[in-house]
């Protein structure tokens, strides 16, 4: 139930302070929940934040502090219920109550930073992430608010009425005892020093404090990994790689999320050093660094800030065991994020060297959408490898793969097989593929395609395809194309006769597009003639061709 509806329907409040408080709390709850639904950059989140900011400013200016009592489903200001939400999953009140918060005071002078921090803490709880370390109370306390105050009790407690007489849970005698050798032997001190007050050097103090800063965490974690691995390497110590398994996974995920690739490389070097006498364990541990989920996390993270895969990531993969090429292709198969796929393609390319034939085989064995990615990679690192499979790709007829093949075709170079394949693509059911094929054939000036391309100028063709036909013909054989275009525009009369009617609109369109890239000045009159007799669209096309031809000539002479 929406608490705003509850407000109106129950008539719980009628004064402005209550209404304004309700606005603030609704905005806070919505903004907190919104991170479950939207990407942080989403405009909806921006709107929620703006609402939160505005509603608080309004409340604080008019009414000062907001002091709330927290009940299971309600937040109460004075005697008024100013927030009511009975759905536990959505309820701001329940989240706080469940963790033990019993009152919350937001001071009039609370800063935007503090309001954001409050929202952050509530959002983290809304996401339902495991919080073995913190709960809402400790998070709120940790935040060190200056203007926000909470009163808390333990969230849920044993029901004392149900205690059993002989339940010995609280019997102190049952506690473990301190071992006799605890912290023994004590360090040996040879002398006594002078205990005097001395001012602390500010710079040294700041340096020491920086070690407790979150920015130091990655370095701290690596040092911890090193200490633990040293214990693993110590035969006399009971620490075994198995004990480190979860920690290493967590550390890997953290470093990846933070894009700390250089530190991941250091971690791998540490593992190689300390586990060198246990090759199987080493391999297994290293293998975990390249698990699909792990690679997906890092590529998703990297693509947000980088256009290309950082070199350290390649260095990292090179240090790890396994068939990275096959694995990266697998990872690519399970990833839909375009940025992440771009990074994966870049990672794949260096591993193709020396395995071109195998890689090209994969193009035919993977899903069509992945095939398109592999074709793009092949275009960069093994373009000639695409020649033998072009025919097969054409026969399969997948649009994404064929479109990608056409993008890469200029890198492949000349090949009769490829030319034949491109020719066959002129019959593809996909317009984008046909247009791409025409362009590719034109760029290769493949004369045998002239007739087939000309045949694509049909009334049912789109203007994009008609354009492509004209341009392709003009590029493949300018002389033959000029004759053909003239015939298409005025099928019944020669240039000098100025007799007869106009050709079909489709062919006229292709002819205009083709003449636009050709140079014979005599055709200006033909285009003028066409413009006078054409409908609106074709008129504009003919005029455009004329303008471009003149501009080109003027540019040449000027």
């Amino acid at each position, binding site marked *: 139930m929406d608490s705003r509806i509850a407000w109106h329907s129950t008539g719980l409040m009628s004064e402005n302070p209550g209404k304004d408080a309700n606005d603030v709390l609704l905005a806070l709850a919505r903004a907190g929940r919104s991170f479950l639904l939207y990407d942080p*950059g989403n405009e909806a989140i921006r709107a929620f934040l703006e609402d939160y900011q505005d509603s608080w400013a309004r409340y604080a200016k008019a009414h000062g502090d907001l002091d709330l009592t927290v009940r299971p489903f309600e937040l109460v200001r004075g005697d008024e219920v100013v927030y009511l939400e009975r759905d536990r999953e959505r309820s701001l009140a329940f989240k706080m109550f469940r963790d033990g918060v019993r009152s919350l005071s937001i001071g009039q002078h609370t800063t935007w930073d503090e309001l954001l921090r409050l929202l952050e803490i509530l959002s983290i709880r809304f996401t339902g992430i495991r919080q073995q370390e913190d709960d809402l109370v400790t998070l709120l306390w940790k935040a060190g608010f200056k203007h926000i105050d909470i009163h808390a009790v333990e969230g849920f407690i044993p029901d004392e009425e149900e205690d059993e007489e002989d339940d010995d849970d609280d019997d*102190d005698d049952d506690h473990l005892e301190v071992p006799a050798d605890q912290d023994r032997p004590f360090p040996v001190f040879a002398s006594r020093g002078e205990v005097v007050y001395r001012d602390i050097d500010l710079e040294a103090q700041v340096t020491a404090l920086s070690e407790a800063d979150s920015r130091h965490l990655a370095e701290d974690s690596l040092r911890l990994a090193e200490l633990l691995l040293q214990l693993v390497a110590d035969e006399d110590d009971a620490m075994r790689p198995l004990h480190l398994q979860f920690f290493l996974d967590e550390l890997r995920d953290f470093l990846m999320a933070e894009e700390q690739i250089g530190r991941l490389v250091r971690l791998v070097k540490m593992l190689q050093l300390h586990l060198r006498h246990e090759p199987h364990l080493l391999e297994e541990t290293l293998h975990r660094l390249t698990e699909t989920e792990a690679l997906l996390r890092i590529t998703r993270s990297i693509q947000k800030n980088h256009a290309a895969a950082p070199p350290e990531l390649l260095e990292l993969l090179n240090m790890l065991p396994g068939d990275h090429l096959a694995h990266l292709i697998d990872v690519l198969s399970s990833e839909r994020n375009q940025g992440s796929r771009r990074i994966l393609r870049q990672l794949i390319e260096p591993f193709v060297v020396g395995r071109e034939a195998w890689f090209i085989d994969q193009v035919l064995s993977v899903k069509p959408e992945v095939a398109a990615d592999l074709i793009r990679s092949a275009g960069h690192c093994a373009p000639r490898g695409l020649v033998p499979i072009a025919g097969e790709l054409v026969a399969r007829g997948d649009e994404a793969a064929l479109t990608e093949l056409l993008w890469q075709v200029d890198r492949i170079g000349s090949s009769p097989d490829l030319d034949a394949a491109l020719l066959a693509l002129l019959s593809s059911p996909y317009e984008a593929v046909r247009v791409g094929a025409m362009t590719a054939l034109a760029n290769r000036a493949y004369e045998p395609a002239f007739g087939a391309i000309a045949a694509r100028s049909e009334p049912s063709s789109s203007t994009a395809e008609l354009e492509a036909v004209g341009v392709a013909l003009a590029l493949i054989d300018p002389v033959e194309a000029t004759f053909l275009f003239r015939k298409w525009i005025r099928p019944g009369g020669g240039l000098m006769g100025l007799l007869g009617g106009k050709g079909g609109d489709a062919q006229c369109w292709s002819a205009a597009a083709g003449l636009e890239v050709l140079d014979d000045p005599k055709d200006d009159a033909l285009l003028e003639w066409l413009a006078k007799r054409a409908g609106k669209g074709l008129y504009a096309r003919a005029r455009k061709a004329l303008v471009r031809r003149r501009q080109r000539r003027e540019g040449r002479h000027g």
Partner: protein
Amino acid sequence: MDELRQAQIQLGSALEKARSGDLGLAELVREHGLRFVQVFTSLLRLTKLHDLQNQAFDIPVREFRSCIDRLWQELGAIHVVAVQDQIYVNDIRMRPPSPEDASTDLGRLLREHNVGGISFHTTMDQQDIRRLVRCFAAKPQAGRRRTALIERMRISGLEGVDVSGVFLFKVGADADEDQSTVQMMERATAAAAEAWDAVASHRIPNPLPMRRAVTEMLAEGLNAEGLWEQEGMIAQPGRHSVRVARLALLLGQELGMSGAALQDLGVAAIFHDIGYAVRGPNEAHESAGARLLLRQRGFHEAKIRRLRATLEHHKDFSDIGGKPGLFGRILRIAEDYDNLARSKQTGFSPAVALEVMVSEAGNFYDPLLLQTFVNRLGCYPPGTFLRLGDGRVVCSRSLVRDPDIFDRPECFLVVDEEGNRPSIGAIIDLAYEGEIMGLAQIGSF
């Protein structure tokens, strides 16, 4: 960039960090946790219909095993708590698909045994599961329902399973709850001792109660009360841990650490010696402690620093392998001070403990941190017995109040001018009266 855009980036980044290591975990716990609860409830219900040998148990027992394996793999320990009409699995509330769902009945079935929560600290095979179900199937004994269940479980060899009492949501603080420092220290000590007991029984350490205790300490204020009692090495492990925590917090606070870092430091201090509870023969407690703390799942800044501190709290500042981390260096000072100032073996007064430590600044101890510690505790730290010029003996009871009176603490009277020992020692502020002649022997009083 405008304020709102900046806020979006800040919040997005904070949430991503919070999720680090826990990707998809909440969803997994919701999915498998609910099934786990449903199957467990079904098993308990089945005991009311069939004999335990009945084949009707076969499938749910197998499924329960599969659920417990999956959850244990992710969580390390599974805590199912029924609070009133709700069920939580490791702090995540289960959402039954309908009000009639099997899971909604678990609370009632557990309450038949006066139980509100059940924790699984190990995986279980099918025989274990059948034994557990058998324990719950037995008729509850009036007046000692939970106790009887625990006995049955112990006899059945189910050492990896714990049950707890019925829970209620606490509505407010008790009016008569004692908020004094001593009582607060006692509560923290009890929590620390329970943590030792729990890990000794192969339970995964749970930092949250420690964090609550540290939060209370910091909220209460780190005054000197509770820092001077002469009790030697009292046989309860929590005492040393909590005192070390207070000393570490004093140092950290004097250094200027943030509230968040202080909280993490306090928890690290309470756990620093926990390896003693689980170490093997001839094993170093630092390594044993680290091994234990590694069992807690999830990447967290506090856990990383706690682990480092546990491993490094006996390392010298000048160690050739590199200086220990900040928490380790702080704990080294706090722990050595607590040990030296309290041990009957050394016979050091707090003031002498500090003097000998100062002689090792730069070698054992980080000189900056040690000086910070000295600046807070003073020339005569709480608990130091002093002989005054007029024959009185006093015991210091304050931390440094001002650098100008660094060597003149507030004290309480132990022996008056006539050599009598008053039952309640008057407060004597050496900043205003009394001439210190020297340290008095501890043993004399």
